[in-house]
């Protein structure tokens, strides 16, 4: 009797996983992996898999920052602008003769300030987050191009060998990029699940008004989230610059921010906020990584890749809205 009940509940759990978005994405990822492994001989080679994980780690790191904001019912589309401007500026300052370490600190300070400004605009100015970050991205990029640097490509300054290790070195045979992603995953997971800060983020995402009424410091929390996501963007930018030996400001005009959103939404972190965890980010990262890598190996045109990503993201949002319908009680008028 008891065994049958146990198997029943076990079956129900499996069924629930399969029905949830996570389960679907997991299955899709596995299917894509098997498909590419069978169809593309070069896909399954250890070198390619390592390259896959490494290339996708930066996306994963950025997605962790985005996830923090999205779980608290926000969105940050200014991450790429913060990333390229702060990193480029740090390099420009170094070339102007300042010590490299100081320049990196100044870059971090700029990213932090930008994040705080965006957060303040949302928390105290009550501007919808997506507007604030969209416009702020434009302003930050415009500021960078006008006052900080004129060249689009900024190479890593010379004589900074230790910096190259971040993107190109490896620790116990594992690339530093992947290690950094893994460490950040653990840290974010601990913060979200073990600290008051993390619980507050979930509370804000579930019902912002209730969080506010119960006395949570909603406004400082919003500022903190955008500051953290800006800092994470800066860190991801450093890794990117280190591995490519340069940073390209035109990334701001690329579809990279949609890739981040793709990771977050596909992984199963609903845009309504309140749920999702690091597990979802990892899942989304893996799936998007397989997809991008496979398409690259298949030699699909870049513009067609964009189309595919866009359609997949749209489908993900449609499924998200069906699985996690908008809560009419807590969604507000003009909530876009």
């Amino acid at each position: 009797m008891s065994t049958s009940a146990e198997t029943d509940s076990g079956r129900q759990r499996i069924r629930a996983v399969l029905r949830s978005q996570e389960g679907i994405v997991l299955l899709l990822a596995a299917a894509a992996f098997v498909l590419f492994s069978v169809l593309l001989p070069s896909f399954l080679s250890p070198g390619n898999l390592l390259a896959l994980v490494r290339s996708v780690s930066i996306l994963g790191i950025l997605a962790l920052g985005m996830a923090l904001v999205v779980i608290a019912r926000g969105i940050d589309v200014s991450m790429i602008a913060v990333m390229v401007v702060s990193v480029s500026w740090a390099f420009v300052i170094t070339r102007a003769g300042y010590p490299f370490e100081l320049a990196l600190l100044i870059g971090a300070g700029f990213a932090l300030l930008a994040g705080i400004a965006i957060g303040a605009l949302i928390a105290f100015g009550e501007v919808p987050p997506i507007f604030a970050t969209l416009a702020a991205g434009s302003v930050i990029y415009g500021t960078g191009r006008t006052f900080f640097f004129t060249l689009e490509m900024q190479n890593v300054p010379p004589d900074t060998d230790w910096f190259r290790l971040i993107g190109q070195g490896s620790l116990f045979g594992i690339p530093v990029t992947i290690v950094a992603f893994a460490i950040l995953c653990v840290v974010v997971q601990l913060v979200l699940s073990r600290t008051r800060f993390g619980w507050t983020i979930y509370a804000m995402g579930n019902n912002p008004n209730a969080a506010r009424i119960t006395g949570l410091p909603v406004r400082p929390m919003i500022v903190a989230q955008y500051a953290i996501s800006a800092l994470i963007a800066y860190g991801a930018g450093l890794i990117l610059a280190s591995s490519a030996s340069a940073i390209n400001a035109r990334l701001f005009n690329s579809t990279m921010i949609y890739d981040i959103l793709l990771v977050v939404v596909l992984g199963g972190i609903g845009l309504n906020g309140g749920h999702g965890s690091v597990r979802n980010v990892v899942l989304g990262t893996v799936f998007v990584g397989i997809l991008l890598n496979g398409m690259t190996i298949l030699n699909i045109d870049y513009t067609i890749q964009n189309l595919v990503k866009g359609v997949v993201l749209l489908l993900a949002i449609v499924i998200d809205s069906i699985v996690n319908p908008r809560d009419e009680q807590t969604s507000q008028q003009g909530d876009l």
Partner: protein
Amino acid sequence: MASSDTLTRLRYRYLSGRLVGEILSKSWIDSAIPVAALLAVLVALAALIPGVFNAGYIADLSRQLAEFGLVALALTIVILSGGIDLSVGSTFALCVLGALVGMNVLDIGIAASLAVTLGVGIVCGLVNGVLIGYLRLRAFITTLVTLVIYRAIYDIVFPRLASVIVASTPDSPTWDYLGFGDFYGVPVSFIVFAAVALALHITLSRLRPGWRLRAVGGARKSAFNAGIDVKRTVCLAYVASGLLTAMAAFLFSARLGSTGADTGIGMEISVLTAVVLGGVSLGGGRGSVGNAIVGAILVLVLTNGLIRMSTPGSVNQLVLGAILILAVLFDAKWVKNRSKILSRVYVSPTYLALPERSKAAEAAFALNDRLGAAEPIGLGIVEGPEDVVLDADDNLYTGTRHGTIVRFLAPDYQRSEIFARIGGHPLGLAFAENGDLLTCVGGMGVYRVDREGVVSRVADETNRSWLSVIDDSRLRLPDDLDVAPDGRIFFSEATIRYEMADWVTDALEGRGNGRLICHDPRSGKTQTVLRGLVFPNGITMCRDGQSLLFAETWTCRISRYWFDGPNKGKREVFTANLPGYPDNINRGSNGTFWVALLGLRTPTFDLAMRKPAFRRRMARRIATDEWLFPNVNRGCVVHLSETGEILDVLWDQAGENHPSVTSTCEHKGYLYLGGVSNNRIGRVRLPDADPEWTARRDTWGRG
């Protein structure tokens, strides 16, 4: 002391700040700020760059405005519906491609090309509309993704066709006329834009689809509950947006004849900036075609100005982004705080000094308990019987808070029936000569109820005064009325600044916000006779048939006004400095008058009326329920002689039956009492009165 009082009086008469509140309460204030900003930018630009506004520049600007403005209108429609469309830039690019493929590649003629272009726009809009309207996705993220998708399609198709598009030039004079021609000096594309804008304005502000759209954007749930098909309305808004964007793209293609890889990139930011800057609120439901055009001109002039000053493109991006942030910030704060600011500054008190009352005058108002024994009528049946009146068959009529006129049947007034349903709270009542019941209805106007109980409107507006900021043509608070011997209806409107529910707040102002109005049934015209009265309340005809008495509540004064005869236009004080606030006045037997005092003056409130700064501070700083209000909880009935001397005073000492009295009516030896916040009508016997006297016989000489 006296001179400082005079200064205070003058200061608060001429600089009371009343206009600030009135201007803030107007709906056009939302649009006034962007228009002012536009004018400021134009003046600044003209000063910075001499000769900037020449004919060539204006022609060029109007062509740009035609394209940019159409896209701004497209976004306005979507924002009004409570959504947003970021894919306009990519849709625009796809439509341009559609137009050029039609004209240059396939060479299918201008009409077919237009059809292709509009078709592309409609399909793009329909995809957004179905996703957002029917599948209820989030507008922002969805259109952000469709932006990427449409752009990807453009990037895939455009390079394959670019050389063909450049290689051929279409041979169509209409096409060239659309792009470069002008009609009496006005660019053709601008005429197209103006026509579309006008049609859209009429649709949005005057026609049902526009109202539905704004209703959905303003309050989605309420719109749904009102029976509007919300999903379809939202979907159609995106389709309309795609259509307008396609028109803009067609004009753009006709003007440039080619397209580039960056067509439409970043357009969503500049269009969004234009629309929000023009005053279209992102929350939905608020905004107009005019707003969008003002914003579009602002953004175009700014960006053109920046290009003139030869700044790099990144500065342009920086400036537009910063303006967008500021505009959105202002919009969010403005929508949230406008009503808060308004409620703080709307009350604008003035100086009002009431003379001290002498001991002798007080003695006439010695307490008694003449109303204590009042026999209750309709206890618990009526709520808020402001006025009472009796007909020729001795039946008793009163209005109630529930919007009905109740009739109590003679002789014992135990049975009652609803005589008529009005809708608003009937206040003053009076019988016309033919037996029709006339009533002033709070918030509605003057209405007539015939003997069968059929309600018809007499007047609900009067002439608009030219210099008044608030619309004073509508009747907000008609209070009491009486009928002149020739049938003209004179009625008072207590205040033009407050609705019925806030009538007591008018006491804090102490200004002449009320007026006396005359309706002439022969011409059907309604005209304001006297303005600037301080809460004019009761009205009754004098027996000469040429003058009337009216009470001004907050000044505790009753005046006489001649509307006919040799003294026409004359106004004199009948009795002043009463101990309380007079409400209705009615005639009594032996040529006397009855006055109901709805409340009593207190030294504190009298002092407050001499201190407008204090009342203003009070209205700004503390919550409404903690304000100092006049005492309207205790009143009495005063019997006045024909010349205004006090004959008698009736009190309810215990304050149980009639603590505050708002009207009286003498009828066959009894006095009937009403109270606007009471739950009963009272009746007391008048031992000295003529037992056959009725108001009807006194007025019309019969019945």
